Every structure is written in C-alpha cells, then in structure tokens.
C-alpha cells in the first residue's frame, strides 16, 4: 500500500461509491444483477475489508473471524425479537457486542503471534461454534437457530412467563403501536429491507466501511500497524508498545465482522451456529488473499468473486452446458459437457481451488497485483512509444 495523496484517495473513494451504487446495472450482464446476490457481495465485502485491517495491515492471520460474524447475527436477531424490527438498533447493538467479544478474545490470543495466534483464534471460534450448539442454547436456540417469531400474547408478556425463543416482545414496536400480521419483515423506518432497498442499505454501509478503511490505512495508527507487520521486534525497541495497537486493530476488525453478521440477519432474520464454523473463517481468508491482502480494494473484489462463484457457477448445470456447446456435433458436445461439468455446478469448488492456487503461486499479491502488473506494462509501453516518437521527430 503506497502512501497515496489525499486527492487520489478521494478519487478512489468516489469511484468505489459509484461502482457500488451502479452495481445492479453493471453486474446484470454477468447474471448477478439481482438484489439478493448483490446484498451478499456487499455484506461479505464489509467482512473482508474488516479482516484485511487485521491481516493486511498487521500480518496477524486470524482463523476465527466467523465467530464475530455469528455473534453479530445473534445480537441482531435478539434486537429484532426484543426491541424492534427496525434495523438501526440491531446494527448498532451487533457492532458493539462483536467489539466487546473481540476485545476479550483479542486480549488472550494476541499474547502470541504467527501460527500460534492463528491456532488460538481458530480454537476460540470453534469453541464459540460448539457452545452455540450446546450450553448456550437458551441464547442461540441450538440447532434450530434463532428466529424472529410472532409476538407473545399481551397477558403473558405482562406476567413475564415467556419463552423468548418462541415468542417475541418487540417493546419499541409495541410502544409505537406497529401492527403486526404474521411474522414481520425487517425495515428501516417503514422501508422494507428486502429487494433493492435492502441492497442499498448494505451498499451505503459498505461505502462507509470502505471509506473508514482508507482513513485507517493512511493514518498514523495505520502506519504503526504496517510497522508491526514489517518488523515488530524493531518497533518495540523504537519505543512503541505494540500490544494495544494490535488489540485495537483486532477489535476494529471484529466490529466490521459484527456489522457484516448483523446485515446477514437484516437480509434474513435467522441466526444459526453454522455461520461461526471454521469453513466460514477460512472463506474470508480466501477472499482477502484472492483479492490482495493489504490493498484497499482487493478484499471487496475477492469477496465478490467468491460469492459470485458460489451462486452463479454452482447454478450452471448440464442443460445449460448443452445449450452452450450446441454448436458442436453430438459426440463432441457430450465430451465437452462432461469435462466442463466437473468445473461448474457442484464442482465450482474445484474451479475456485484452481483459481486460488494459480493466484497464490503466480500473484502472491492477489488480483490487485495482477492489475498492477498490467497497468505498469501499459505505462512502460506508452513511455517507450513516446520516447521513440520523440526520437523520430528529432531525426
């Protein structure tokens, strides 16, 4: 990450915001122009940006970030159940809860670095996952998952003989006299959070999250984090107490994950423990490395790519392939379908795996490094062209 002038950062931010807002139009040709998927892009974009603040800047690889995602989801659903279906209290509460949770876990795990830190975070996340299924069932509703339910009958609410897992209170909504029919939908002051309004709510938060990450990366604080990544030992002898810096970065990163988890609950007010599983933690690592760890845009790019593969590539079946290869004679068609069938549909993981290997081997800086190389080649070409031109002119 280079120093970057203020103007360049502002341009980057404006372009990013423009692209996100125009995403429904831009991504339609790729078959991804529908709000449910776009919302996922935005949510996992936030998750990856937050992860990158820890991993990209300090070099500390957390393998348990999904725990904060899960905590954020549970916290949000509880707000939906207890206070209001309005998303504002849910989002704020989730970020705070995830922050506190990250402070606790960070305080312990950051006593170690390198692989030991990664293993500790993994252990904590798996512990949270298993606790959510067992001891914490009163809070998490175990395997069924925590869901928004119908209101408890008012007489029982008054007597506090409630089964909060199956009956909701929504104190704020009740106080404001919101009438509910069936199970209500999340909303922002009456605007239903489904379809495009839902996407744009996530999009605005993604843009804010991205802007904050630029500020952090360019700040004095961000420079200290980069110095930790570069040579932590030297930094200690330079008079810097690295531990509070690391804990702060960990907490910020956990809050981003909490926000993402909360938005998952906004999209679909259901929180299950599988959100905390280690595969989910691994996914955000893949996203960040695929896009380019330590870059500003990379994580969002990686998140979008992986979610695109997961949703679009996995939906391609043999019929679609037969249609695609219909120009071939029948026998060839069959072979082509059989071969490419391994890479799409249920085989999308294979494609993703191959892509990931190619990128890590040839572009350790992720997709962003690839773009950088292409851009540099263009620049050099232009330069040599122009010098040749001027030489010719001189002759």
């Amino acid at each position: 990450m280079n120093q970057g002038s203020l103007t360049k950062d502002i341009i980057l931010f404006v372009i990013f915001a423009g692209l996100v807002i125009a995403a429904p139009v831009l991504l339609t040709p790729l078959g991804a122009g529908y709000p449910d998927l776009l919302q996922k892009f935005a949510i996992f974009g936030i998750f990856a940006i937050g992860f990158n603040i820890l991993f990209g800047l300090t070099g500390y690889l957390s393998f348990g970030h999904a725990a904060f995602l899960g905590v954020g989801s549970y916290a949000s659903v509880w707000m939906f159940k207890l206070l209001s279906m309005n998303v504002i209290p849910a989002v704020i509460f989730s970020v705070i809860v995830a922050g506190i949770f990250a402070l606790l876990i960070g305080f312990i795990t950051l006593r170690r670095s390198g692989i030991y830190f990664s293993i500790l975070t993994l252990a904590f996340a798996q512990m949270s996952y298993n606790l959510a299924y067992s001891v914490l069932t009163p809070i998490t509703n175990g395997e069924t998952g925590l869901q928004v339910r119908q209101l408890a009958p008012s007489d029982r609410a008054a007597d506090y003989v409630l089964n909060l897992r199956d009956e909701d209170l929504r104190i704020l909504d009740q106080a404001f006299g919101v009438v509910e029919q069936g199970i209500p939908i999340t909303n922002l002051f009456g605007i239903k959070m489904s379809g495009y309004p839902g996407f744009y709510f996530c999009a605005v938060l993604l843009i804010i999250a991205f802007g904050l990450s630029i500020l952090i990366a360019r700040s004095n604080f961000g420079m200290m984090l980069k110095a930790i990544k570069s040579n932590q030992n030297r930094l200690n002898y330079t008079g810097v107490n690295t531990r509070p810096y690391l804990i702060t970065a960990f907490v910020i990163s956990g809050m981003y994950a909490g926000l993402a988890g909360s938005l998952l609950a906004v999209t679909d007010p259901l929180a299950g423990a599988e959100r905390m599983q280690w595969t989910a933690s691994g996914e955000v690592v893949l996203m960040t490395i695929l896009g380019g760890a330590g870059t500003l845009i990379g994580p969002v790019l990686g998140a979008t790519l992986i979610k695109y593969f997961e949703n679009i590539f996995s939906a391609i079946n043999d019929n679609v392939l037969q249609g695609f290869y219909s120009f071939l004679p029948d026998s060839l068609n069959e072979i082509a379908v059989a071969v490419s069938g391994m890479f799409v549909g249920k085989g999308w993981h294979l494609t993703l795996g191959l892509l990931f290997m190619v990128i890590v081997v040839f572009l350790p800086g992720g997709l962003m490094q690839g773009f950088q190389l292409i851009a540099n080649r263009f620049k050099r070409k232009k330069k040599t062209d122009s010098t040749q031109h001027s030489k010719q002119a001189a002759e």
Partner: protein
Amino acid sequence: MENIVLHVNDVHKSFAGLHALSDIDLAVREGETHAIIGPNGAGKSTLLNVCIGRLKPDSGSVVFDGVTLTGKKPYEINQLGVARVFQTPEVFPDLTALDNVMVPALAKRDGSFKMSVIKRLSREKGLRAQAEHMLEDLGMADQMQQIASEMSRGNKRRLELAMSLIQKPRLLLLDEPTAGMARHDTNATIDLLKKIKEGGMTKVIIEHDMHVVFSLADRISVLAGGRIIAQGTPDEIKNNPKVKEAYLGEEQV
C-alpha cells in the same frame, strides 16, 4: 564532577552455568563516547542486551539517569531516552526510508501508544520535514522513497542510525556499527558518528575494529571472559599489558 548517565552496578549473568558476565561495574559519563571492546565471546553483546532490557541480569542493576532499567520492557527503556542500533541492521523492510524514520519520530512525539485513527500521516508536515532533514544529513536524500529491503547493507545501517537519531536519545547504544562494512563505508560511518558526537549525545559503542574505537572513543572498557579487565582513555588502554595479553595471548617466555 561530571554527570553519570548510565550506571551498571555489579551485574552478573550466567547461561546454564557459564558465567557470561561477572562483577561488571561501569559508569558512562554524560556526553562521552564509551567503547566496550574485547575478544569474541567476552560478553559484550550480553552486556548490551542487559542494558536494553532484552536480558535480565541474575543480580545487580542497570541505572539510567536515576531510573532502574532492569525489568523494564524494551519500549519503556526507549521512551526514557535510550536508543539502540543493532549489530545486523534492523529496519522496517517493507516501508520506504522516509516511513522508516517517521515511525520512531511518531513514537517519540506520541509516546508508546496513541489512538490516532483519523489523523493522516501525510499531514504530519512537521515530523516529515524533520525526517527528511535527518535523511539528508546522513546523505540519503536520494533514497527517501526507496523501500528499505532493497537497500545495501551500508545504507540500511545509515537508515537505522537515522531512525535512532530522530528520537534525539540521551543515550545511544551501538552494537558494532561498522560490522561487515567496506573500509570506505567504515570511514564514512566514523565521520558520521564524530558529527553526532559534536551534538553532545552520550554513546556506548561495542566494536571489534580498533581503528573505529581509537578514532571515536573518549574512554574504553575492555571486557574479557565476562569481566572488565581494564578501563581508561585510549592511550592508557593501548599500553596496558593486560589488554595485550587478552588480545594476543600470554607472552611466550
């Protein structure tokens, strides 16, 4: 009487029965350049590591300006005004030379921890000017935007010196500042250190190279077998029979 800045009192340190340091008493006066010399394995680096808080002595204490350093963390010792230059240059390899100098400058101004998430580093014009000035002083004006890992060893050494000097430490500890350098780089470093000397900074140098020691030191302590066997001005040391013995072995009769 001159002020004593660093006082090493009766320090002992042993590793698994091997006495690395015994009965070390050392007083470094304000403004002087104090060299610690001695053959390989004499305990020079151990002594420095005890001073900087990397190693805890088994007994005895190190007092800097009235404050006991033993048991303090490295960053606390630095914040008290003790900077260190390492034997193999320790810089931030992924950062530019300018950023390498900005980090210690920030640490000096803001203390060991400060949350400044919103303040842009590029707007720290005052610190930036200081850092640029420091690099220019050390003849690195052309390398400000160079990534440290791409620098030659000599330049890394100079960069590390800039990182220490920007903090204006009261005491600078140098661990073999010319190790592995070519002769003309060594001379350049000597000139540089002489220049710093005019600023009145107290320095402790550990060095193998006698040429460096005799051109810089005001006083010299000679370490052999974990003990200080001689202390004095360069001239006194040159003619001390014990020192000759430690370096050249016992005289054959």
